[in-house]
């Protein structure tokens, strides 16, 4: 169990490139924190700085109140699971799992007991005598986790641990990691670019972009109250639809006027737009595909033709081309639409996200 605090942390490389820019983050005991963002956003660098594998250019890193900037990785008591597993190929599974205990000079019978215990909990008992080269991807991943678990470290760091697995195994391992977190009851920091992993595993998600933290929040809040357009677009599959609309007042009601119609806004959002002086101006609006509905022509905010209909089982994704704009709708399979058919769409006004087109920050949340 550990509390980790990052204070004004910056990572600057020799060529002047800043991979991480002045980030602040507080990770409490037993939290499952996910660092998520697109490639090159600095999430792995941040994790590696916590691990001690990268030097910190500026700022302070605290573990349980102690500044650990200059503490080498082997003295931090933090375990890490790597993207490519990093199993020692010349050692058996048993030796791989036992290695950290051997370094700590734990008595042999104690090592044996703990290795067997961990192996049993991860379903590796039959594989203890094998070498990593004889294991499948999922088995290697389990060994990598076993190697981390056996130490009872203060925190677990995981750097995209599922990205080398196929989709089915990834789903299975995700559940196992979640289960592991419940059992171990300790701090997890997990890096991924997969927002499904982020949403399903994390108790707290940190969305990063270009070395900066965009938003730190719970999965639900991140989904429902994104602070800017980037977070809104990054979290959620399929991604949020964005469109420009003019904010006007008609018949005493604040509405967003789109190319094909208008969207009357609920009171709370209307008040915020009024207060912000947005009447008569163009705003950037966003609506999640699951909050778009088919409607009559009179209610329509968008009119267009169905370009793709994807049936995913119980639900379906409909791609509608509305002029230059493509609107994606996530609906149930009964809303079957033929390719090329004309449809009218409206967003659920209470679920609309409205952003400042200049700063891209939210106006209504």
């Amino acid at each position, binding site marked *: 169990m550990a509390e980790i605090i990052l204070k004004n942390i910056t990572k600057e490389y020799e060529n002047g490139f800043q991979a991480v820019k002045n980030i602040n983050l507080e990770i409490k005991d037993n939290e499952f924190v996910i660092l998520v963002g697109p490639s090159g956003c600095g999430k792995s660098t941040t994790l590696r700085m916590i*691990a001690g*594998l990268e030097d910190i250019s500026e700022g302070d890193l605290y573990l349980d109140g102690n500044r650990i900037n200059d503490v080498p990785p*082997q003295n931090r008591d933090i*375990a890490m699971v*790597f993207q490519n597993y*990093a199993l020692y*190929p010349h050692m058996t599974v048993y030796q791989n799992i036992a290695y950290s205990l051997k*370094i*700590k000079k734990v008595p042999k019978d104690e090592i044996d007991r703990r290795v067997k215990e961990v192996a049993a909990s991860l379903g590796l008992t039959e594989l203890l005598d094998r070498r990593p080269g004889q294991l499948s991807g999922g088995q290697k991943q389990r060994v990598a986790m076993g190697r981390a678990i056996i130490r009872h470290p203060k925190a677990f760091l995981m750097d995209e641990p599922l990205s080398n697995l196929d989709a089915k195994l990834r789903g299975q391992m995700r559940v196992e990691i979640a289960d592991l977190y419940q059992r171990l009851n300790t701090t997890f920091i997990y890096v991924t670019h997969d927002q499904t992993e982020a949403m399903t595993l994390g108790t707290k998600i940190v969305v990063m972009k270009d070395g900066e933290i965009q938003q730190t929040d719970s999965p639900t809040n991140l989904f429902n109250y994104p602070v800017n357009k980037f977070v809104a677009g990054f979290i959620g599959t399929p991604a949020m639809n964005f469109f420009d609309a003019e904010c006007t007042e008609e018949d005493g009601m604040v509405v967003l006027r789109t190319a094909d119609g208008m969207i009357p806004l609920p009171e709370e959002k209307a008040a915020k737009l009024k207060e912000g002086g947005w009447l008569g101006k163009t705003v950037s609006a966003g609506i999640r595909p699951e909050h778009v509905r088919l409607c009559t022509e009179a209610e329509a905010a968008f009119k267009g033709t169905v370009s793709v209909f994807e049936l995913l089982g119980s639900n379906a994704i409909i791609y509608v081309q509305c002029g230059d704009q493509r609107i994606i709708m996530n609906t149930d399979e009964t809303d079957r639409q033929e390719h090329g058919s004309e449809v009218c769409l409206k967003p659920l006004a209470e679920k609309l996200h409205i952003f400042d087109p200049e700063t891209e920050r939210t106006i209504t949340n």
Partner: protein
Amino acid sequence: MNTRYSDKRSLPVRVLSLLGKILILGTASIFTAFPFIWMIISSLKTKAEILNTDIFLPTSPQWSNITGIIFNSPIPKYIFNSAWVSLVIVALQIVTGAMLAYALVFLKFRTNKLLFTIVMGTYMLPVAATYIPSYIILADWHMLDSFRGLIISSTVSIFGIFLLRQGFMQIPKGLVEAARMDGASHWRALWEIVCPMTKSSFITFGLMNFISTYNNYMWPSLITKTSDYFLVSQGLRAFFIRDGAYGTEWALVMAASAVVVVPLLVLFAFTQKWFINGIGGETGIKG
């Protein structure tokens, strides 16, 4: 489907090509091996037979030449000197070389590339250019004419650093990082993770440097003058010119040369797999 390579050339062309290869390789092999075979045969001849060019094989093998060298000459002592001095030198070169190669490959520091350039730069220096400064340093340390001097002056091998660095570069950095996260120091990571994975580089390096140190003549002959400290090449020369008998005991000189080579042949016989692998660039590690 049979995907094996099949030679579509006609039979006579194939036979001719094979004969050509045998001829070229056979000739090259004979040229390479002949001096060695000649040495072995001469070591079993009498003095008169050696100087008679009409006789290739000895009429009756003079085994006493060999036993005389083994039991009644200082040659075994020189072999022992060479063997243990080479062993110590190679052990030290492996430790120093592995440490520097590890630092160059796995540690991040500003002058990493500069350091490697400087190290490799020293490899370009003619060895003879280092003799005088090395001699002066050893003289200042009172280590001339001693095993200590021989060993200390050969503690680092630039070739070894280069060879090990190339081997280490095949290892994913994540493995060393994983070891560090597991609690291993750099020292442990080097010997418990990196070394077992680059075994063939280590063995190649050890063998090549053992052989070159074992056979080394110039440098040991510059810094040692007491026969107690002679290595084999020096010892052979001393044996050749002893008692002012320049070139008079050819049969014994040949027998001594043959005996001196035996330890290297035995070593090579046991390790040739690694030796050839290492030179061919095969490190035994799959990417």
